């Protein structure tokens, strides 16, 4: 049972043919060949699969692709624009926000979403904003530092 689903991804219009309950994560990775979005748990706990749908942070492992019809999706590949890294990406590089890197795409999307919704995010906002993204390597310290430093830039 396949459905035709149309949406924009990182600014480009796409139409995919997929099972309506196929996970957006799988459609993005396997059909659209955008492998930057990662699977860490498949149960919406770790946030490694996070993307933006219409500007809101969402775990793509829990999103059936049918429900993305007509929406605007942003993955990690769409965060930098015209080869120019986003302030959050620059800050992650400068301040050691990424270690093994597997949580990094989702974490960056969460940070981007936080900045968009809470432009003057303070330390508490950052902790709350990233609470749905698990990192096993960093203890979160350098991630907070990176996000803190990117606020206002």
């Amino acid at each position, binding site marked *: 049972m396949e459905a035709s689903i149309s949406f924009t991804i990182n600014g480009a219009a796409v139409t995919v043919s997929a099972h309506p*309950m196929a996970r957006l994560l799988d459609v993005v990775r396997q059909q659209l060949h955008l492998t930057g979005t990662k699977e860490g748990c498949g149960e*919406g706990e770790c946030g490694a699969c996070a993307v933006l749908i219409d500007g809101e942070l969402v*775990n793509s492992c829990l999103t*059936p692709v049918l429900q993305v019809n007509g929406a605007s999706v942003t993955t990690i590949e769409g965060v930098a624009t015209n080869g120019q890294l986003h302030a959050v990406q620059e800050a992650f590089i400068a301040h050691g926000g990424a270690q093994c890197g597997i949580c990094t795409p989702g974490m960056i999307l*969460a940070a981007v979403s936080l900045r968009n919704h809470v432009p003057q995010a303070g330390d508490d906002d950052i902790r709350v904003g990233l609470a749905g993204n698990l990192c096993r390597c960093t203890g979160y310290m350098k991630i907070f530092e990176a996000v803190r430093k990117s606020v206002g830039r």
Partner: protein
Amino acid sequence: MRSFLPSYELRRAATMEAAVSVLGDEPGVWRPFAGGTDLMVQLAAGALPHRKFVSLWGIEELRRIRVDDDALVLGAMATFTDMQRHAIVREEFPLLCRAAAETGGIANQNRGTIGGNIANASPAADTPPALLVYDAQIELVSSRGRRTVPYETFHRGYKQMDLAPDELIAAIRLPRTAGWMQHYRKVGARRAQAISKICFAARARVDASRVQDIRLAFGSVAPTVVRAVHAEAAIRGAAPDASRVAAAVAALERDIAPIDDIRSTRDYRMRVAANLLIEFAASLRAAV
């Protein structure tokens, strides 16, 4: 993915009427699918026995939050984020706001819905205790018409609801009130992204000497979310002094029935339920 995806179906419904029509055509065959934050987890785990779903995502009239003079009406598809962003929810129904903020993380709050939270009927869900103490009413719709059910009687047993196979939860109605103290505390294994081990919501109307009225509700301590009616009765109409509170704590044993499970123990839940009640009672004493 531990389910065989080809054996599942998900179809779109553009309007509430269309959704209701599908449910009515073959009662029990199609089930509503809201934001997916519960159903997709079950699908991934190979634990979703039902096969045919109708998607409610995008049906505007189901997502609307309406403010009437005497009630706030939440569309069943209002997300946890929608609720937290709504000024009246924040001001007048802060316990619901708290519950929404403590359900999963932001990504799950952006997709999880109040209707889905109710219909999934997990005894550990975070909004039901708040809904109970707010005297919520559930508006159900089907091709046979509409009816309203007090939330207090909606959950009949573990995963059993006063919900016919062809019915859809359309909205949740919360009467607007003033002058009540409000209290909410969720206890999970960690401070974010945690299924509750015990969840407590409380409201009380106090005057100079006594508790005029009170609502106490607990999650994760029974097969469904529960109003602690015996504990309430011990305090209602009286001054919240030490012996009243002790009576309420003792009465709690008749209201809740916690178990040992994968997350916690019966002993822990009983002790903490009592402590949470005592903690709320202390704030009552201070207010009286």
